[in-house]
């Protein structure tokens, strides 16, 4: 074969190869373009269907005599007996038929205290660590396989978890403590009235049973907060915007999260300057625990601790109207112990 000269035309094979290569690249780009074609437009998806719910409630408890709402107070202790958080929690749970009614052997139990603020237990801005510890013990005694403690804090989580004392006491009892790391949040659709899509702290919703352990305290905007408002800790993202419609967002969250049990810590109650507090003079020792299966009833009763009334708290009414509970706690089986 003669060597090719520059002026030689490419032979047929060469020409076909070149044409084939060009055609192949064109075809490939056409396929990619077609597959990835964005036709534009905003494409806003409509929220549709019913509200999303995460219910961890247990089927109707066995004994009809068991309380649906129990209040444990210092008065329930014998003469000379020391009033402890552990004792109060035990009294309240006993009145409700015991923890075994709610937690089954092998359950993964998530405990959701309030670890929102960089405050010491004495400031009563977070759930009392002794109450959390008492609930963990009860859960383990009832046969829980794993107990997880977590909350989405407002201040630096490391500091909140440590300074609230909850990390220390929970870990000592063998509970798993999970910090609200960014990667633990995933966007979920709640389809609430004001809360549609939000990042949710997955640790708190991936469980067999969820026990809400809020602290009862004053809140400058919502007036009184405990059980229902505690679900703010489930959310990530820019939750500072929720305050524009705080009552509806609380109701939305309480609709989304139906806990197995609510145990309200009112050992020491922040009476003013809530929710963060910071001044011991703003707190009052009450040595009270309210346990309930109904988070609305728990808040309706709890608000009386700081001199509020259920009629002043719109989020109770909203929740009541949505049927997630009752604000008329006197309609429930209430026990005071």
């Amino acid at each position, binding site marked *: 074969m003669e060597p090719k000269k520059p002026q030689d035309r490419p032979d047929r094979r060469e020409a076909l190869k070149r044409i084939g290569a060009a055609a192949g690249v064109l075809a490939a780009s056409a396929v990619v373009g077609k597959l990835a074609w964005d036709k534009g437009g905003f494409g806003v998806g409509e929220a549709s269907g019913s509200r999303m719910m995460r219910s961890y409630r247990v089927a109707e408890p066995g004994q009809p005599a068991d309380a649906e709402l129990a209040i444990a107070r210092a008065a329930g202790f014998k003469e000379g007996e020391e009033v402890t958080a552990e004792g109060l929690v035990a009294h309240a749970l006993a009145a409700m038929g015991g923890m075994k009614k709610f937690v089954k052997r092998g359950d993964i139990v998530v405990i959701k205290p309030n670890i929102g603020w960089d405050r010491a237990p004495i400031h009563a801005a977070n759930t009392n660590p002794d109450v959390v510890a008492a609930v963990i013990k009860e859960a383990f005694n009832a046969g829980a396989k794993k107990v997880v403690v977590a909350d989405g804090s407002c201040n630096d989580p490391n500091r909140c978890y440590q300074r609230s004392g909850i990390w*220390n006491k929970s870990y000592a009892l063998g509970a798993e403590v999970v910090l609200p790391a960014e990667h633990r949040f995933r966007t979920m659709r709640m389809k609430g009235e004001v809360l549609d899509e939000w990042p949710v702290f997955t640790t708190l919703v991936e469980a067999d049973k969820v026990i809400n352990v809020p602290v009862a305290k004053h809140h400058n905007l919502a007036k009184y907060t405990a059980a229902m408002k505690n679900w703010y800790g489930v959310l990530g993202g820019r939750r500072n915007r929720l305050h524009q419609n705080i009552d509806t967002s609380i109701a939305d969250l309480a609709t989304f999260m139906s806990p197995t049990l609510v145990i309200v810590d009112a050992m020491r109650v922040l009476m003013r300057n809530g929710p963060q507090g910071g001044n011991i003079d703003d707190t009052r020792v009450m040595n009270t625990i309210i346990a309930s299966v109904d988070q609305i009833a728990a808040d309706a009763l709890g608000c009386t601790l700081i001199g509020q009334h259920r009629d002043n708290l719109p989020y109770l009414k909203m929740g009541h109207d949505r049927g997630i509970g009752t604000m008329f706690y006197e309609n429930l089986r209430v026990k005071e112990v």
Partner: protein
Amino acid sequence: MACGTSCGCGKAVSLAPKPTLADTELTRAGMHAGTELDLERISARSIADLGAHPSPIPWKGTIGIVPSLNAMLATEAQAVTASAAAASTASSSTASSSAASGGTADGVYRKSGGGGGDGGGAGTSKKKAKIDPKLPGSGIPARPIIRGLVWARRASQVGFFALFMYFLFQTGFRGSFTASSDTVVRLPLPVEGFLLADPFVSAMTVLSTHTVYRGLLWSVGMLALTLVFGRVFCGWICPFGTLHHFFGWILPSTKGRGAHRVEANKTHGYQRVKYYMMYAFLLAALFGSAVGGMFDPICVAVRSIGLGVIPAGQYVTGRGLNGLQTVHSQALQTGADHTQDFLAQTVWQSKQFYFHQTWLILSLLVAVLFMNRFIPRFWCRVLCPLGAFLGVFARFALFGMEKDHAKCTDCNLCLVNCQGADSPQGGVKHRQDECHMCMNCEAACPEDVIKFRFLPSRVSTITKPDLQRRTLLASAAAGAAYIPAARIADSLDVNYHSKVIRPPGAVEERAFLERCIRCAECMKVCPNNALHPAFLEAGVEGIWTPILIARVGYCEHSCVLCGQVCPTGAIQKITEKEKLGIGVAPVKIGTAFYDHGRCLPWSMQTPCIVCEEFCPTSPKAIWVEEVEAPVRDSKPGPNGEQPAMKTVKLQRPHVDPSLCIGCGACEKVCPVQDQPAVYITSVGESRSKTNVILLENTNYNQKT
């Protein structure tokens, strides 16, 4: 003179007195002057001497035993001058031989490599050293101690780099389950340790403040180490130096492996730049600014790795592992979660950190690493002011290198891996101030020329930096002039920038500039990502000094970690009580202001007060006023009428400037996302006597 050796040629040798002791001393002395001229003279004479023999000169490239020379050496060995003479001949020959020709030399001429300090002598010929034929030149292996030291140096570099990175990973508060609620929040480790041991940082702050701040006393230890061993810090300890060493190794320079690389590792004039910079920075410090911290290698390392590499690594890892969450595999998702948990607990934090204009810091790191391609260890040789500072003190070092030029074959193997470009090769004087004490030269030397030892002969050593006096004076003057030049800009005395909000416990701005070395420890440790490197907010003098950007993060009320890690006292080590104002006035870093036009309750009749909720002081600096305000319905009325009016109850926030500490929590949480309706500025900061609002704080006589 006739040829007196056993070759029997009997030829007259014109210029050929056998090397005598005096001669040897003479040639050595000549060589010690370090001039090429001397070498040439010697070689000319020796060649003439040797040229008398008909046999080929072995180091000229011919293989085989040369009995005549062998005999000549043997004869000389009997003389007192034996070994010295041998050395002299060897060296003289090499002056005319090519650099790599040593490899062809005959075994007979291989000298004993053992007995490091003995300096040769008749006895050495009897000692049979292990000669490795694979080694170039005479194949004399380096002393075992040197080979050991090279590995010790490598281990030390890896160890100190690992320690540095570990400290950097630990520069951040991670809560602990072992701590109870009243445990004081402090970092358990001295994570700023490398900075405390940094004599250049000490020198700058001593010049600017006339004091040695607390832990900086450790730097005296580093100075002591330098006075004994020279710049071992650079070669053995410095994590930034190790980084450059590493990059020079895995990405060797464009100079390749041959003569170009040897050339690149010779001493160059540009190495003086670091001295000029160092003196400029010291003069700037004397005139009141520790701006040299911008170039201190430890500061650069903390800043660029802590604010650039680590967050970037977290970003990439987060993206990758979050991507795994979309894969429908429980095992993969759990694995990704656990990996992220582990990394958050060990390497970074549980949230992504962002730093103001950190792209510049990271780009400069990449650039300076890339420069290794063109000038090996560019940073260490050309820019590093700490290296220069230690170089000045290396002249006093008790340990050092001496070399015996006479034995050098100019193979240049010492230069191949020379780190400091400090002239280890024969024919020129060693530059003690440039030497990193890496020991590569002695380890590589096949001829027993280079020796590291205590109290070495300094005859062939230049101990002081080789500087040009005028350039030195000019650069020092430039350093001194920099400060007034920077300060007559309006950034400090007048028109102080409202966004230059310094960390809590920071000293007054002038004192702050005297101390702040821009090491970024405070920014790295800040749990809320509140502290950032300034760009031009604080003037050109304030580049990379810490400022608080509340929109990214606020100052955590009970946190005093930035003061804990500050190595120079620019941020004082305040206690929680001092910061919160228990028993004393609280530390204020600024004051909050409302933009009523953007505030929801003020202008949009919408309830909010997240700012009040987050205000950490007690009593709260933000208080709310209960009002009833008219608001227009968004929907038009029936029959196209104007929309209806109604009244809403609102809480409108106000700031009490006497209680506000300027922490910025309100600004951080304000839901008006892009430009917040409440923001902090530096006015009211307790460290300043002039940047104040309130009359009662305007006290020029008060102590702080």
